[in-house]
């Protein structure tokens, strides 16, 4: 994917402020409430009540449709919020899986790293010992190199971090 360009001059006046933190509340249904069938039945009950078995029967039928429509809309909204929660949970699960994989890798690396550290410290100590011996035998240049190398190895052993990413 192409990188987003960064303009030097945005043209903004700089007077904008941060908005409210909460999500905007909206009615997640059409402003024309209810299902089409409910609207039709309500319309029929209002205008052709006699054809629907009288005023009482027509109102009962219209009321039932409205109730069912209301229940249906509610269920739809619940389903939507459940889906959102599920999606959120999935994202979290994915994050934790990644973390677990990283941690597992770090644990498996710890033993290998520890052996390397110990080896490095041991080798460093031996080299420093050799360096001292070389110095005693008037091999100054060699002793400095060997001692320096030994010191470097010891420091590497002390201060090298355990493997694996931070996260």
């Amino acid at each position, binding site marked *: 994917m192409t990188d987003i360009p960064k303009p030097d001059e*945005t043209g*903004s006046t700089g007077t*904008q402020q941060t908005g409210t933190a909460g999500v905007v509340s909206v009615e997640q249904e059409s402003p024309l409430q209810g299902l089409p069938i409910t609207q039709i039945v309500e319309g029929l009950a209002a205008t052709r009540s006699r054809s629907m078995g009288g005023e009482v029967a027509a109102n009962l039928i219209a009321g039932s449709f409205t109730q069912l429509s209301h229940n249906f809309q509610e269920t739809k909204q619940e389903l939507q919020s459940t889906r959102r929660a599920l999606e959120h949970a999935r994202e979290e699960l994915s994050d934790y899986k990644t973390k677990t994989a990283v941690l597992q890798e770090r644990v498996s690396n710890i033993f290998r790293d520890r052996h390397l550290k110990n080896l490095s410290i041991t080798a460093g100590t031996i080299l420093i010992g050799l360096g001292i011996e070389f110095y005693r035998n008037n091999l100054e240049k060699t002793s400095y190199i060997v001692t320096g190398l030994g010191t470097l190895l010891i420091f590497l052993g002390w201060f090298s971090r355990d493997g694996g990413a931070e996260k």
Partner: protein
Amino acid sequence: MIVGDILELRVSGVYDRGIPNQERVVLYANQTVNLGQYGLMVGVRAAGNSAFPVRDNLLWFGDGVVNKGDWIFIYTGPGVPRAITLPNTEERLYSIHWGRDKTIFQHPDVVPILFRVDAVHVPYALATLSQGQK
């Protein structure tokens, strides 16, 4: 409501959410189009790739032709429109300002909805017409 996808423009994303004067919706032109047919709404994310529009939140881009490869930055704050050519390319970057006093997209579930207008109707001033005919 089921409508077709918009393929000629792509919403690249919302950048610097909640940061005053920097919050912007970034669009990329996949082909030459007249922006006069398009606009943005603010919506709340719903299931899948859908969103519900928030009432009274609409920006019409205004007439202007953009070419393939051009970028359109819609800053939510106030400002002056700008158009620059990107270095070493022929791509242009257009900056449009919504003019909102406060940032809009600080919550990740608030999303931009790009829409295309295919038909409109403006009622005639009937009273004026009848006066003119007299």
